[in-house]
C-alpha cells in the first residue's frame, strides 16, 4: 500500500472516490514473477499486446509501443502468447534481478 491513511474527517462523504484512475498508487509490478522482455527488432508496433494487457502496462501512442511499464506489469504473459511476431519472451524476474545485482556488485 502506498497511500497515506486519512482520518475520518478528511475523506469525502459517502465513501465516494473523487479521483479517477487513482489506483495508480498501487504498484502491482511487485506481483510479477515473470518479466516480458521485448525484442525491438521483431516488434512491428501492431498494438495487439496493448489491447489484451489486463493491467494497462504497455504504454502506446496510436503509432508506437514502448517498453513495458514494470511499475504495474503483473507478468501474466498474455502479451508474449498473443504477439504475432514472437517479439516477447517471458523471463523469470529472479534471473533478471540476480543479473542486475551481479552487474552492480561487479
Amino acid at each position, binding site marked *: 500500500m502506498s497511500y497515506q491513511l486519512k482520518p475520518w474527517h478528511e475523506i469525502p*462523504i*459517502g465513501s*465516494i472516490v*473523487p479521483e479517477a484512475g487513482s489506483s495508480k498508487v498501487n504498484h502491482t509490478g511487485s506481483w510479477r514473477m515473470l518479466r516480458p522482455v521485448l525484442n525491438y527488432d521483431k516488434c512491428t508496433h501492431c498494438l495487439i499486446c496493448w489491447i489484451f494487457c489486463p493491467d494497462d502496462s504497455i504504454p502506446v501512442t496510436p503509432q508506437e509501443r514502448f517498453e513495458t511499464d514494470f511499475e504495474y506489469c503483473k507478468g501474466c504473459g498474455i502479451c508474449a502468447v498473443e504477439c504475432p511476431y514472437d517479439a516477447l519472451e517471458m523471463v523469470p524476474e529472479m534471473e533478471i534481478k540476480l543479473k542486475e545485482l551481479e552487474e552492480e556488485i561487479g
Partner: protein
Amino acid sequence: MAQKKVIALTGNQAAAEAMRQINFDVAAVYPISPQTELMGFFAEYVANGEVDTEMIAVDGEHSAMATCIGAAAAGARTITASAGPGIAYMVENLYVASGMRVPIVLLDVNRALSAPLSIHCDHADSMLTRDTGWISLFSENAQEAYHNIIMSVKISEKAMFPIIVNYDGYIVSHSIEDVEILDDETVRNFVGPSDIHRIPYPLLDVEKPVTYGATAQPDYYTECKYQQHHDFLKVYDIVREVFDEFAEISGKRYDFIEEYQTEDAEYIGISMGSSFGTLKDAVDRLREQGRKVGAIKIRLYRPFPVKELAKALSKAKGVVVLDRADSFDGIGGPLFKDVATSLLATENNPYLHNFIYGLGGREIHEEEFMRAFDRLERLEKGVETRENFVEYLQVRE
C-alpha cells in the same frame, strides 16, 4: 406567507399532492397495499403532464431502491414509496443509500409484516429501517404526511442523508380528512429547483468522473462509518432549521416531539403515528376525572430525540410506551427501548411500562389507552405487579 386552502384528501392523495408540487425528477414505483393507490394518483399527474417526473415501474422494491440510488447519485431528485413486506425487501439497499449519502425520499405507508399476512397497519416495517441510517419522520394524519414530505426533501438534501416519511396504512392512507394545502409556487420555492449540483459528486458530471460504492477494507471501513455516525448527529440541527423555515411559509411550527398536557403530568403515554389523536382523547377523558396525565408523540424518530424526550419526561412519575410493533426479545417494543435509553440521561427515574397495541390494523379506542394509564399508575404505586416490562394491550384471553 403562502396561499393556503383546505380540501378533503386521503393520506395517499395528500402525499400525491405533495409529490406533484415538489415535481420530483424520478419516481420508482412498485405496487403494494396500502401504498399502491398513492402511486396510482401520482401516475395520473404524470399521464396528464402536470409533472415532469419520470416514473419507472420497476420489478420489485429491491430494484426500486437500487433505481433510486442510481438516479439520486446521478443528481436527480428522487422518490419511492412502499409498505410492509416491500420495505423488508428493500432493506439491503437502504443501507447502501445512507452509506453513499444520497438524498432520497421514501414514503412508508406503514403495514404489518407476514406471517400471517396482513395488509393492515402497524409499525413493524418501519422498525426494520431504524438502524439503516435513514432519517425517519412519523405523521399522525394526512396533514402531517403532506407537510413532512415537503420538508423531507429539504432535510434530506441539506443533511445528505436519505429520509423516510411514515404514515399509517389505511388509517391515514385511505381515510379522508381536511388538509390545508399550500400553493404550488410556495412549495416549489421552498424545495428549490432541480440541479445535479445539489449534491457534491453527481455521476452525471462526466467531466469529473467519480466512483460510487467502492469496497472498503478494514483500514478504511471504520472511518467511513464514523463519518456517517458523526454526520447523522448533525441531522438534529438540520431538521430544526428546516422545521423553522417551514413554519415561515406554512404558519405551522413542528418540533421533534409533540407534548400534550405534559406540563403537570405525573403519568405520560408515548406513541407515534395515527394513534396519537386517540391517545389525546384518552388524556382528555382522564383529565376530566382529575387525573394528571399527558401524552407525547414522537415525530422525528431517527435520529431519536433523546434530549427533548428526556426533558419532557423529567417530572413524570410513570411513563407508558405504546409500541405498534413487537421486538419478540423479552425486553420490550422498539420504541420502549428508545425511550428507556433516553432516560439514562435524566435525573429522575420514572417507572416505565410498555404496551404493544394496534398490530396488523387492530383498531385502538381511547378506552384501551385509558386502561394503559390505569395499569401504569397501579404498577407505579405498587398496587399491581408485573412479570415483564412489556405486555399486550389488546389480546383475547
